[in-house]
């Protein structure tokens, strides 16, 4: 494994405070989800999951059709659709629009897609101010960090960390009461909302038959971002599409419950463009940015295509025994946990993250909680095979191949197998070469006094 990955993991494992925050934070979310999807509260839970999977599968298999339908419907309501191949095309579009409208201040509501393309950094590099308005995102933006978790970006921080950064960046001394910290953020950000020229959001769902963007949140910052400024830009991956508004009956019931255990989040906004004639408020202009950034590459692989079904609820992170120990920042990209382990190598190229598909115990808990039934362990195994069969790999792993050949021969020859069984009693002495690294992390089980074969013989 690359050292940077190892180092981050070691740091996280060695930080007691962080371990506690991770354990408690994810544990609470696991309990909330479990409560919300329990048989007595949501008897149709499994039916909803299967239906969500079928809907996502259908949409992804006919993505071209639904994208065209979506585009036509956005345009019918006076909005514009901007197709972007990569990060640079998104920031070029926003910068150009900002220039034409003489905009300087941009408010943003939490969006993993804009994190994915480092939009804030790109805009700030060109002199624009881009302010995150979700409380957790705002805090980590002040700290210059990436989100720690798909739905709980500041999961790794305590009130004392927040007090420190508020003191450093806002000049507010030693405020450690969470309610007061929240109200400080409210008043600072309220000023920004009322002064902002452009609001940028992501999208939880794109509705093909309505040309609409659906935003799901608890704080109200997405509503403010899409209501206060005169321009609303929604940036979404092309896979976020679902066919009909009526399909929200399935997806909204799953998303809130899987993410935070809420039957519905506090606010669900269904937005189909700028304000219309007769409406009092809302933005004057609406742009929907449809982002590829590696998604079509992933789409081309029928075995792993299901990775695009993800609705970013974060349930697989919370339940994952690996994520719960190594945390979000150990992962090489903004998508962490099991879903990050399968989409990161596919978006960035497996050669950049060859260790990632192996950072899993394949316990399958992620697949069990996934609301759209992505078979994450299966995709991980496929990716592992890809790493091992990748160019130049066949020769370099001669030792491993030799080992498996020897194992195969042994399993086909009972006498040799029995003999080997006796020799295996010497295993504790083997602490050389690659075994040394392996043994440094694991204990061998103690050998019983007699082998199974001996016991069997004695029984007669």
């Amino acid at each position, binding site marked *: 494994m690359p050292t940077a990955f190892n180092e981050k993991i070691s740091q996280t494992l060695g930080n007691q405070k962080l371990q506690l*925050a991770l354990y*408690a*934070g994810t544990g609470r979310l696991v309990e909330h989800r479990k409560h919300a999807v329990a048989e007595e509260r949501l008897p149709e839970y499994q*039916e*909803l999951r299967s*239906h969500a999977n*079928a*809907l996502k599968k*259908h*949409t992804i*298999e*006919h993505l071209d059709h639904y994208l065209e339908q979506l585009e036509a419907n956005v345009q019918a*309501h006076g909005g514009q659709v901007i197709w972007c191949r990569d990060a640079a095309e998104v920031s070029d579009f926003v910068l150009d629009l900002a220039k034409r409208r003489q905009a300087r201040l941009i408010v943003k509501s939490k969006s993993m897609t804009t994190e994915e393309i480092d939009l804030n950094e790109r805009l700030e590099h060109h002199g624009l101010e881009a302010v995150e308005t979700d*409380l*957790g995102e705002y*805090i980590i933006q002040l700290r210059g960090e990436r989100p720690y978790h798909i739905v*709980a*970006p*500041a999961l790794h*921080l*305590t*009130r004392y960390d927040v007090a420190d950064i508020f003191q450093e960046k806002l000049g507010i001394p030693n405020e450690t009461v*969470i*309610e007061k*910290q*929240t109200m400080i*953020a*409210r008043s600072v950000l309220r000023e920004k909302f009322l002064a902002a020229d452009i609001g940028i959001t992501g999208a939880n769902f794109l509705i093909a*038959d*309505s040309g609409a963007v659906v935003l799901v949140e*608890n*704080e*109200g910052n997405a*509503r*403010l971002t*899409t*209501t*206060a400024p005169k321009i609303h830009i929604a940036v979404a991956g092309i896979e976020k599409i679902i066919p*009909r*508004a*009526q399909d929200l*009956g399935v997806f909204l019931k799953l998303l809130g419950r899987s993410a*935070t255990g*809420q*039957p*519905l*989040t*506090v*606010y*669900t*906004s*269904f*937005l*189909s*463009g700028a*304000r219309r004639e007769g*409406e*009092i*408020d*809302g933005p004057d202009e609406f742009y929907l940015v449809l982002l590829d950034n590696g998604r079509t590459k992933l789409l081309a692989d029928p075995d792993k295509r299901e990775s695009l079904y993800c609705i970013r609820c974060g349930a697989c992170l919370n339940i994952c025994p690996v994520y719960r120990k190594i945390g979000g920042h150990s992962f090489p990209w903004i998508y962490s946990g099991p879903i990050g382990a399968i989409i990161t190598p596919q978006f960035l190229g497996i050669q950049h993250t060859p260790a990632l598909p192996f950072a899993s115990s394949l316990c399958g808990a992620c697949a069990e909680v996934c609301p759209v039934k992505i078979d994450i362990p299966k995709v991980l195994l496929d990716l592992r095979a890809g790493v091992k069969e990748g160019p130049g790999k066949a020769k370099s792993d001669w030792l491993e191949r030799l080992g498996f050949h020897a194992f195969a021969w042994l399993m086909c020859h009972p006498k040799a197998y029995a003999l080997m069984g006796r020799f295996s009693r010497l295993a504790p002495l083997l602490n050389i070469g690659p075994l040394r690294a392996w043994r440094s992390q694991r204990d061998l089980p103690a050998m019983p006094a007699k082998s199974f074969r001996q016991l069997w013989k004695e029984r007669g």
Partner: protein
Amino acid sequence: MSARQDILNAVRAGLGRKPLEPAPPVLLAIRACEAQERIASLLRCAGVLAANTHHACSAADAREYVARAMNGRTAVASNAPFLRECGITGLANVRTGITDREELRAVCAGAGCGITSADYALADTGTLVMLSSLEEARMISLLPPAHIAIVPAGRILTGLDELLTILPKPADRTSSMVLITGPSRTGDIEQNLVRGVHGPGEVHVVVI
């Protein structure tokens, strides 16, 4: 099958593509639910989420409740005819009738309460459904720290599935449909629940 579909299918087949299959069926189920049960469920669910609730027996009762809830604060009320009919827009310190966006924004930014009706309410989640129009502006339920919603009992639906059955395409009616389920909240610092982070931290659901 139309000629258009035939030709498009032939094109797709020629390119090795599958013809467009029908989408999986819509999955919506509406549970039978009596009017009284809907009211009770709406108020109970909203109450669990820490909204203040009131079942008003008359318009006058609702008006009195609103006056009490305002508790000396100023308010901006939406242009919903229902609020006028209830006499709520006539209460002291209530501004209403604003149709200009910039004016509304300034008023909302300074008001203590926002008073609206709701186009629908969802009984099984305690949700208010707000469709943006000349009668209901988006900012009134968003900018002031308190939101008071007056809902006629007849507009209470069983839940999300009934809403999506009545409004299969909300975009045909409005550019903005918002579902509001309880007061604004966050758990972003140590998962400690704090209300009123950006939207109203105080929500009143009044059913007449």
